[in-house]
């Protein structure tokens, strides 16, 4: 599985990740980010796109 880390000290709920990769990320009520910490490797590209799109550089993707 591919691991998705989000540093919630950095996250400012821009929602870029949720826009780019809604399969993985979602803003919940009160705009707090929710995400799947482990995803199928087929979603790795999407997760990396989300990491690149994050204005706070809060997302890390690892195998």
């Amino acid at each position, binding site marked *: 599985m591919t691991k998705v880390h989000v540093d919630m000290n950095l996250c400012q709920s821009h*929602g870029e990740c949720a*826009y780019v990769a*809604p399969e993985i990320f979602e803003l919940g*009520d009160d*705009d707090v980010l929710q995400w799947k910490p482990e995803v199928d490797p087929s979603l790795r590209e999407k997760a990396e796109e989300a990491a*690149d*799109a994050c204005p706070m550089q809060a997302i890390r993707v690892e195998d």
Partner: protein
Amino acid sequence: MERPIVIVGASLAGLRAAQAVRKGGHAGPLTILGAERHRPYTRPPLSKELLVGAQEAGDCALPCDDLDAVWRLGVPASALDLAQRELILDDGERIAYDRLLIATGSRARLWPGPQVELEGLHTLRDVDDALALRAALAGRPRLAVVGGGFIGCEVAAGARKLGLDVTVIDVAPQPMPALGHELGERCAELHRAHAVDLRLGTAVERFEGAGRLEAIRLADGSRVEADVAVIALGAVPNTDWLAGSGLGLEPGVVCHATLQARGADEVFCAGDVAAWPHPMADGELVRIEHWTTAAEQGTAAGRNMVAAPADRVPYAAVPYFWSDQYDVKIQAVGLMTRAERTEVLESDGSRFVAAGVRDGRVVAAVGFNAARRLAFYRRRLAGMPPLEELAAEVAADVKALVAA
């Protein structure tokens, strides 16, 4: 010797383009030139977290250590020879390229009046500017901000957080012109609620002081005492070095939808310098200075640089920008500058989303502390839906804030 792909501009757009070029399979030489001596870093914190000391310069670095490229930093380009496919540097050195990406960004617009020889005047564009301003604010000066746009409003909010006395001066009747006058008025209320002295609808007549700034005289006759002033009058695209190259430069480097410069198929553009026809602007050229546009265009241009001509993809994303002021995150999607009016579509006390409307169609949406809702609008805006249609969708959406 194989000519490299050359990227001129080592900030966000240039970095994303370089990464896309490698990801797209380019195994040959790749050179990145940057006018600044720094490796790529992200600029939004410069007027926010960095200014108030919540982040340091190192926190702003964009990861790029694993990128296989030759970096030449502190090296501004001074001219472009399209016929020879060569970049020319200040010292006359010529760098041949096979394909070129122009991502030279923009710079702070300087005070347009006679040059002011006073200490205490700042602009804010790069990390060195931000550190200099932060050092100046540490002396707890009275701060005047000239210009109530993004940078001016964010600096004002940061300085209030630091407990400084802040005056914001703008010739416009509201701050944040990018949001239109109705939402600009909400921004004005926000700043007043945080004890910022707003001097709107009046111009700066002159800066006064003996060696150091002491006060700013306004056209309405009033005088603002200040030890430090931030000149925040927007940005100017760095296209001067391209004068005489043959490329169209108004309102930025004129590109096709594929981000190829018109008249030079081997030259691509991304970020603040690029002007390209946007479908939401009826094909008119737009030039956008947002972080997300620079990131997306860098990736799009980099992909197109290494794609076969028939596989090049137009860049037509719905733009996104944000601004943090006090406890409010302002976010906007679409082309707000083209909106003629705004209409609040959903609201929940201080949180709301307003549509930017042009000819009855929604071309933008602005949220105040409504991040969860913006993705919906961003997906819907590409088609510029009629206002009634979008309002009906929002009214039926259980996830919407309470309908206004």
